[in-house]
């Protein structure tokens, strides 16, 4: 395959009214990387993710995905490009009028390529991939627990065999046990399917377990995009607040020292 970066953001500028959210932001994600976007609340992480998906457009700058600008080419080409990535929204965004199996099979059915038998087969496969019982297939989204919603949403994001997976707060709202299990699930899928993953998270454990690179969004720019070890070396107020303090506290709690 080509060596072009999967995602390339160049000089992104985003404004909401008078506030400048991003100012000349650059970010490059190579194939096979797992990049975690971190930053304070309101620093524009989710907005950046929405730029990559193409739900919003930056005021200036260019978003390129798979080596071509996101909005270039014919409608058909744009649509094909979009099918190459799967998105896991923060609250799952499952279609509440459909049951789990219909939700997962929906993108496949919309493509009108697979037969019913193949769709049923693939849905069963995705369900087992995210470690859910076949019996969940008939449940409605309203009947699922938070962790199950995330798993079903992940299965749906994987339905079209994406090369790029975008996760918005994948572990928010899960207890530590489930969140760790979910992280392991994403990690094993990433290895199995050779996915490129971009995730937005606040959770240090998630990011330590998953990310190969950490992109820090601060002062309207990506201030650093490096591995966890390199990031920890960094001298930046955000790194101090985000990594050192909580880590220190946690380490203390684990050793039973801190009160």
């Amino acid at each position, binding site marked *: *395959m080509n060596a072009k970066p999967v995602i390339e953001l160049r000089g992104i500028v985003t404004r909401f009214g008078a506030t400048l959210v991003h100012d000349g932001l650059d970010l490059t994600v190579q194939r096979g990387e797992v990049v975690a976007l971190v930053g304070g609340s309101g620093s524009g992480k989710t907005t950046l993710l929405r730029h990559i998906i193409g739900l919003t457009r930056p005021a200036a700058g260019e978003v390129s995905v798979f080596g071509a600008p996101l909005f270039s080419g014919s409608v058909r080409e744009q649509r*094909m490009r979009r*099918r*190459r990535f799967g998105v896991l929204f923060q609250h799952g965004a499952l*279609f*509440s*009028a459909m049951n789990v*199996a219909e939700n997962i099979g929906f993108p*496949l059915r919309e*493509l009108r*390529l*697979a*037969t019913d*038998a*193949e769709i*049923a*087969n*693939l*849905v*069963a*496969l*995705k*369900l*087992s991939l995210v470690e859910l019982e*076949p*019996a969940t*297939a*008939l449940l*409605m*989204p*309203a009947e699922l627990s938070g962790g199950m919603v995330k798993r079903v949403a992940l299965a749906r994001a994987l339905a*079209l*065999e994406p090369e790029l997976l975008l996760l918005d707060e994948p572990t928010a709202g899960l207890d530590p046990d489930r969140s760790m299990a979910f992280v392991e699930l994403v990690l094993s899928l990433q290895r199995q*399917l050779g996915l490129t993953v971009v995730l937005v998270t606040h959770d240090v454990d998630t990011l330590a377990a998953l990310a190969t690179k950490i992109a820090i969004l601060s002062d309207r720019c990506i201030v650093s995009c490096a591995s966890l070890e390199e990031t920890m070396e960094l001298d930046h107020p955000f790194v101090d607040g985000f990594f050192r303090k909580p880590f220190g506290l946690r380490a203390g709690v684990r050793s039973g020292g801190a009160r």
Partner: protein
Amino acid sequence: MRSPEIATDAATVPGTRGLVRLQGDWTLRALAQRLSTFRQQLAGRRDDVAWSLNGISRLDSFGAALMWHAWDKRWPERIEIPENLRAIIDRVAASAESPLPRVPRFNLVDAVIVLGSTLLSFRDHALDFTRLLGQLCLDLAYLLRHPAEWPLREISANVYKAGFKAMPVAALVGFLIGVVMSYLSALQLRAFGADIFIVNILGLGIIRELGPVLVSVLVAGRSGSAMTAQLGVMRVTEEIDALSAMGISRTIRLVLPKVIALTLAMPLLVLWTSSVALLGGMLSAWLQLDLGMAFFVERLPQVVPLANLVIGFAKGAVFGLMIALVACHFGLRVSPNTESLSSNTTASVVSSITVVILIDALFAIATRSIGVPR
């Protein structure tokens, strides 16, 4: 991305089998272009030929499922396949073995159950509605004892939203209906030389009947649906639960203001719409029958007793009360999914219009000897 290919080597020696070689990327994206061709070429040849999958550079689960189903869910007798691809197809095969549970088919017992639950849901609605009504009465009693807690701001906001903002559309519809009624009646009346009775027809018809019903249908569609949707979304987003958690009565805060506001605003809207409709009728009568406007205005109170205006007013208040109650009833029944929101909003509008017309019939019977000159 390498495009997928099927290469066939014909059998060289009679009696031996041909070889089918699959090459390139067998992924959803690559296959999408010529999928039906591939499906045809793969189908029904499982054991007739030998297969070689060594040339496949990428295989995803869609491609694997395609092959597996083309092979009728069994491995071909002769196949050369690298281990990593075999694992992918094996996973697909395993999940084909454990199929999803099916939605049971609809049968006679289900039909009985549906019928029964429909009947029971009527009972549910009646109970819920009574409960809501009772709660509102209790709230009113409470508010009479604690006058400081009247939700006056909410009431005035609702009067503005459901009443004032409905004035332009109500006027437009009223005016046009007035014109149409006057025009059609004028054609008939002129044939009998009874031009002057247009005042009676328009006066009685609009003030007593058409005005209130017309406004009710408009308001049910406009404000009733909005109330249901608002309460419904507040349920979906747990805002109503948040209110309860703060110890704030949801009926006093959300339902009562809507009910009171609509009960107050509807008679005024009826008055407004009826006046505009009469204006339209008057204009049309003037143009069609050459009936002077001043004459129309002078004649109106002589032929339409005041009781009709009172009946129109009363109808407006009762209709407004019912529309708001029905809208809130359905709004509070919404469960947290989009399907329920849409079905409850539909049910709200349909029921409130039906209820309005039923009550209108009751009014017609109850007031049959009042205000009709003989």
